[in-house]
């Protein structure tokens, strides 16, 4: 039987090609202009260890200055009880106190608010803000735009994937009602969560300057309501989909064939597949793993300061020694409550961008990209010709089961050919 490729392999090649081009044409690394740390340390001798103008200028030039000296509080050897000899507080000088507050090292007592209120200066907030409006918004935005452009290009080159054989008019039930219910519960909430999340991130850059603060504010209030409350149907849908489909998504040898033929690019036949082919398994595990990670960090954000995740995670990663083995320093494990929230937000957004890009491709292939694909999740019924082309092993299983039990799938059309 003459069959055309599904085109998925071409799509993978296209994405890989774009990734290579992105790597080749990446912006050049900035030239090394760092000031010698030893020279900076030597200059500090003239100020008794305090930072110098050179330190400040180096930081303003964007150089990476080692500021650990500023966290060395007190003067070793100084008598703290020497009244007025050195400063109003003796050996423990006022600048020490201010620097301790500055670096969240002071022994602060508060009557209410707990550990969160003890943090008076939290400069991690600035780094988080810079990251959020800089790399996160830039790379995240381009990832989504790039995915849409790649899909549009793919559509122009490949067109809609059709059927090699004419429709038979006989249908088989691809997904039961409860499966479709869970899929749309998950899909509907994910789309709205994605849009409200994008609005929260990009509203300040695009909506506010164009339409003014009033509209942006109203949209953000709505986005916050949607984002906070649709988290629950998303998590329920994720659990339902996992329970119903995990068995069908365990990798097996048919996936080797599927990937060896790159979903149909190598050779002229469609690789045989069970209920889910190799590409769909990638989608499934992406949704489950990334969705679970987004849910965890989302819960941490939904209940602020109640579910800190990162200090413990970093401690476990440090214990594995992998980070150190790769030549990096240990990850910080002494995090302020605010830092936990900042890291949770950053991780939440990074993983969400990756999952959004994957889901955009999933939506494409499930709608305009492939003829007959939407029926599987729309009515749940697919034509046997479609099932044979894309999931031949699964169709054989369904037919064998029908022959064994003498029952046909619900809503099946005419008698099976066999």
């Amino acid at each position, binding site marked *: 039987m003459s069959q055309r490729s599904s085109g998925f392999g071409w799509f993978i090649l296209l994405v890989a090609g774009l990734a290579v081009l992105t790597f080749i044409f990446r912006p050049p690394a900035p030239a090394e202009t760092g000031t010698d740390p030893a020279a900076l340390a030597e200059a500090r001798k003239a100020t008794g260890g305090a930072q110098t103008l050179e330190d400040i200028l180096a930081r303003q030039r964007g150089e990476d200055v080692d500021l650990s000296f500023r966290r060395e509080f007190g003067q070793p050897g100084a008598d703290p009880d020497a009244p007025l000899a050195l400063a109003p507080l003796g050996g423990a000088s006022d600048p020490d106190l201010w620097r301790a507050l500055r670096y969240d090292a002071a022994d602060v007592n508060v009557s209410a608010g707990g550990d969160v209120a003890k943090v008076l200066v939290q400069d991690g907030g600035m780094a988080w803000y810079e990251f959020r409006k800089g790399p996160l918004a830039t790379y995240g935005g381009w990832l989504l735009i790039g995915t849409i452009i790649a899909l549009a290009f793919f559509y122009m080159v490949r067109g809609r994937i059709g059927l090699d054989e004419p429709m038979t008019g006989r249908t088989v039930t691809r997904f039961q009602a409860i499966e479709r219910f869970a899929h749309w519960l998950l899909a509907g909430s994910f789309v709205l969560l994605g849009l409200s999340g994008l609005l929260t991130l990009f509203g300040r850059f695009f909506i506010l300057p164009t339409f003014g603060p009033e509209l942006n504010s109203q949209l953000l209030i709505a986005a916050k309501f949607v984002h906070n409350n649709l988290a629950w*149907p998303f998590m329920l849908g994720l659990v339902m989909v996992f329970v119903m489909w995990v068995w069908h998504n365990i990798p097996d040898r048919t996936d080797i064939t599927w990937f060896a033929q790159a979903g149909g690019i190598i050779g002229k036949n469609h690789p045989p597949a069970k209920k889910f082919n190799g590409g769909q398994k990638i989608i499934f595990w992406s949704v489950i793993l990334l969705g679970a990670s987004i849910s965890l960090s989302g819960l941490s954000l939904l209940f*602020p300061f109640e579910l800190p995740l990162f200090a413990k995670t970093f401690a476990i990663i440090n214990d594995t020694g992998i980070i150190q083995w790769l030549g990096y320093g240990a990850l910080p494990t002494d995090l302020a409550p605010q830092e936990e929230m900042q890291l949770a937000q950053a991780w939440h957004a990074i993983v969400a961008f990756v999952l959004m890009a994957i889901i955009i491709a999933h939506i494409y292939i499930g709608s305009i990209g492939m003829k007959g694909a939407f029926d599987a999740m729309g009515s749940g019924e697919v034509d046997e010709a479609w099932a044979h082309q894309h999931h031949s092993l699964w169709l054989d299983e369904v037919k064998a089961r029908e022959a064994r039990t003498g029952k046909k799938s619900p809503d099946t059309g005419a008698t099976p050919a066999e």
Partner: protein
Amino acid sequence: MKAMLSGFAAMILLAVGAWYGLNEMGFSSADKQSGANVRLD
């Protein structure tokens, strides 16, 4: 299509239920992050 519409309807019901339920249970930001000694409360 009924399954799809049911999924969307359940999504809305769960969201509204979560919003109402969590607020009733005292999980709003005002309940958790504020108190009698905070002037905005």
